[in-house]
């Protein structure tokens, strides 16, 4: 396959790359040391300010070290529910009279509890009573709504130029972010610290309906959503990574505001939050302002780590979904968490196996065998804080089956286990990793998210640059060793969609079943 020209080009390329990178890493770190100031407040909250005065704007990222993995048993979807609540305002914003609203909200909660207690009765549930309790709940909700100024929190942010305002909850963390003109820094600090410190369970139950609608969109009504929910639920037997992060319908539909506020109290403490600001800000001016406002976040101990460790998998597991949609294949192998010394080795495997048209999987499955339209290998999934999976996903071209795809992927895995990767492949991984890191530094929002994440996960944002040392140290032998450790049959879970004509399915997809739930 390899032409003379290709070989020559590669040799030249490697030499150039090696020269370009000598010392670059130390330089970048030194450069950023001058731009970045960090401060840990007495309440434990960490502030990071990165000066990047390219335009009179800034972006921020509030990184909370709590995600769906921390949802208590029976309350899947809670972290995500709380994230939505954090947009509903505080005791000062979003209300006409908080003292009165607070009383009304307590009545909503009591009415909900009464309804739920009846609904959950295993024996002797009274349908008539249920209707009455539901009515009482709706009345309490309407009463509380009288004090609400809807969406005032986001309204103030948007009127002041907030751009890209959003948040997300994944298994490992919850992140809030937007960008703003630099002259709104103090206003932003007030808004953001207010919602972290002074969350109110406003319009909780309506927002719960919105979240359930989000589940319908992303999971129930989406073939990939259904496939992946089943895939991880099968791969994990003990750890919360196996749980739906938007929440199982029966659980998310019964989360109550009291539970959400308890989650807030436990996880939204200073020691569990990093706030990064990047843009046209001067640390000397900004830090006192940030300190003033973010000191309002309650102090509290760093929440205890979970005790559950996923037991070693000893039996191969498979999930076959037979439905009218087109085929898709995924498989995963348990791997260690991001702190593992081999973390970079997994990245090297992903790069070599599936990064771009030079990758092994593309060339084998897409270009040469022409059985897949797209194929990727990546890790970790579904999260990285705890041991995740190394996954392969592929989409077959028409006329080819998940089984063919699986066999072809396994052939490439065997190749990785049996022989070293080439020098060119390894060098390419290192070069691309460095370049991608650099490319990410030119965007305020991306940089804010990255700094906050590294500060949280490694205790020091500098790890963003220092990790290149680990990248440099990856050897061909490492790749072969890790492949042989991880990619074994008994450590595998695979899931796929097999296409069958609608009439033959016999029953509807499980996801189209009626939602369980209290409301």
């Amino acid at each position, binding site marked *: 396959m390899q032409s003379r*020209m290709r070989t020559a080009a590669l040799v030249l390329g*490697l030499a*150039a790359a090696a*020269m370009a990178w000598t010392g670059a890493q130390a330089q970048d770190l030194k450069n950023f040391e001058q731009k970045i100031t960090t401060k840990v407040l007495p309440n434990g909250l960490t502030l990071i300010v990165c000066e990047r005065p*390219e*335009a009179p*704007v800034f972006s921020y990222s509030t990184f909370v070290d709590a995600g769906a993995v921390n949802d208590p048993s029976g309350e899947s979807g809670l972290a995500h529910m709380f994230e939505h609540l954090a947009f509903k305002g505080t005791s*000062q914003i979003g209300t006409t009279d908080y003292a009165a609203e607070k009383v009304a909200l307590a009545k909503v909660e009591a009415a909900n509890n009464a309804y739920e207690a009846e609904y959950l009765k295993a024996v002797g549930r009274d349908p008539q009573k249920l209707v009455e309790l539901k009515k009482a709940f709706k009345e309490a909700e309407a009463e509380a709504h009288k004090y609400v*100024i809807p*969406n005032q929190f986001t309204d103030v942010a*948007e*009127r*002041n130029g*907030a*751009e*890209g*305002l*959003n948040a*997300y909850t*994944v298994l490992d963390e919850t992140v809030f972010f937007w960008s703003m*003109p630099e*002259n709104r820094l*103090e*206003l932003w600090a*007030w808004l953001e610290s207010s919602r972290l410190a002074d969350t109110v369970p406003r319009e909780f139950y*309506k927002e719960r*309906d919105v979240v*359930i*609608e989000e589940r319908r*969109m*992303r999971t129930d*009504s989406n*073939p*990939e*959503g259904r496939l*992946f929910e089943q895939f991880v639920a099968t791969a994990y037997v003990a750890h919360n990574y196996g749980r739906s992060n938007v929440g199982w319908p029966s659980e998310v539909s019964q989360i109550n505001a009291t539970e959400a506020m308890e989650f807030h109290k436990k996880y939204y403490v200073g020691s569990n939050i990093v706030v990064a600001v990047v843009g046209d800000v001067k640390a000397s001016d900004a830090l006192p302002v940030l300190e003033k406002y973010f000191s309002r976040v309650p102090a509290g101990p760093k929440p205890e780590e979970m005790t559950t460790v996923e037991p070693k998998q000893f039996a191969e597991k498979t999930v076959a979904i037979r439905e*009218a949609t*087109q085929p898709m294949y995924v498989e995963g192998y348990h791997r260690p968490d991001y702190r593992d010394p081999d973390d970079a080795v997994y*990245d090297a495997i992903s790069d070599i196996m599936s990064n771009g*048209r*030079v990758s092994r999987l593309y060339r084998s499955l897409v270009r040469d065998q*022409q059985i897949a339209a*797209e194929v*990727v290998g990546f890790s*970790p999934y579904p999260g*990285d804080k705890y041991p995740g999976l190394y996954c392969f996903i592929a*989409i*077959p071209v*028409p*006329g080819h089956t998940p089984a063919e795809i699986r066999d072809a992927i396994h052939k490439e895995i065997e190749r990785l286990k049996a022989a070293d990767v080439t020098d060119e492949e390894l060098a390419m991984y290192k*070069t691309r990793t460095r370049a991608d890191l*650099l490319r990410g530094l*030119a965007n305020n929002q991306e940089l804010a998210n*990255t700094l906050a994440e590294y500060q949280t*996960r490694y205790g020091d944002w500098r790890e963003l640059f220092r*990790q290149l040392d680990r990248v440099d140290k990856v050897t061909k032998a490492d790749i072969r060793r890790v492949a042989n450790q991880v990619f074994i049959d008994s450590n595998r879970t695979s899931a796929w969609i097999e296409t069958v*004509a609608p009439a033959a399915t016999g029953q*509807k997809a499980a996801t*189209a*079943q009626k939602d369980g739930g209290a409301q």
Partner: protein
Amino acid sequence: MKSLCQHFPRLPLFEGHGLKPVPFTGRSISKAFIAGAIFAAFLAPLAPLAISAQQNKPWEKIPIPKLHDFKPQQPKRIVLKNGIVVFLQEDHELPFVSGSVLIPGGSRDEDPAKTGLVSLYGQAWRTSGTAKLDGDALDDLLEAKAAHIETYGDDDSTALSWDSLKGDADQVFSLALDLLLHPKFSAEKLELAQQQAATGIVRRNDEESEIANREAAKLVYGPTSPYTRQPELATIGAVTVDDLKIWHERTIGGKLIVGISGDFDPVAMEAKLRAAFEELPPVKPAPARHDVFAGPKPSISFIDKEDVNQSNVEIVGLGTDRHNPDVPTLAVMNEILGGGFASRLFQKVRTELGLAYAVGGGLSFAYDHPATFRVGVLTKSASTVDATKAALAEIAGLTTRPFTQDELDRAKDNILNSFLFRYDTKDKVLAERKRLEFYGYPADYLETYKAGLEKVTLADLNAAAKKYIHTDKLTVLVVGNGPEIKPGLDELKLGPVQAIDITIPMPGLQPGKSGSAEKKP
């Protein structure tokens, strides 16, 4: 290494769960779309409620200093004697150089019998490579340097782009130029592109929102419009290598727009670009288009999808183009209808009724043809009729419920205070200038537009709503699970519900039986 949050944006799954739907990329093999997500939204009459009762607004006491002076750096514009336009945007922050060439002519100009040609061209152009270096060898060479050269096909243009570390910039530019001027289209790579396109075609009915987006656009423009006709296995199969060559020869002589940004020396770069482009023949003007845009008839259509529990509702009609002087007013109206959390649609359908996660919409504008009016709601099957009624009421309310000063002020604040995010990076400024050049708009368009936004009055808004909002020129499309939609769509009283057949034509196969497409038709 820790992965960044959107490391795998191809699968919506990896994005986590957010407060607002994000405009996800979708799978690369099928067109991205996701309904009303980030559009505009419509009204809820909540705004004036009780605000006066609020005693204390601490945030209003926070000082807002004068914004730092900022004059976005404009790229240098050079018109070569053959008419090719070059933009140079220096940016020395990082050691990279990137460039692009925009070429007029896109899928709206392709032969309808070969629909999909431009998309195949966009792939096979790069993967084929040149006579000197085939696509695979090019991949090897570039990836070893963490550099890229890519080609694209769009509805009104095609493009070639490149980027690399500064030290590799000369070599990568030469390779890009060779690909631009001397491509060698290969049958093998065309076949690969056809297979990938076929994969997208057979999967296009898997995701509800993809169906809704596609079919809604067809209802607005008509199914055979150059803006909505869809590739089929037969039309992509009809494309030959000669077609790609002919397309290339036909478009490469057009008015190319070259943009370079990054860490380069401007004098040397200008000289290099002149040497590369100035000797090409004078550019040929693009032929004028004579599209007819009738817009939809009022109606209600339905597409049944048994494996979902949520309906995608699309309320659509014809939009306008940016030459229209009413565009600033319409932008303000869109903001009030569906621009943010405080918009009428979001307030009503999501916040007040809790009927949707994704709701939004507005009247959008394209640069050289009418875009669409579109309001989208995603709601559980059982509330389809309620949510549709609520959205329709908000649309109709634009003409019956006068806009308030508060709404106007809020919309202007929202748009104007975030306006600088349109040009807060040098790349955004460059992209905007290329766009304006491509569509023949003046270079100061953004300033004019901003001035127009500042001047919008309540009278303008009310007049625009009367002029542009006609519920009798909108059509409703619902994609959802028929048996679960109770009450049924007839409750909307929009006339007989018309079923749309979205069966994918499979040449050589029994109708309705999905399975293998011909590998090489």
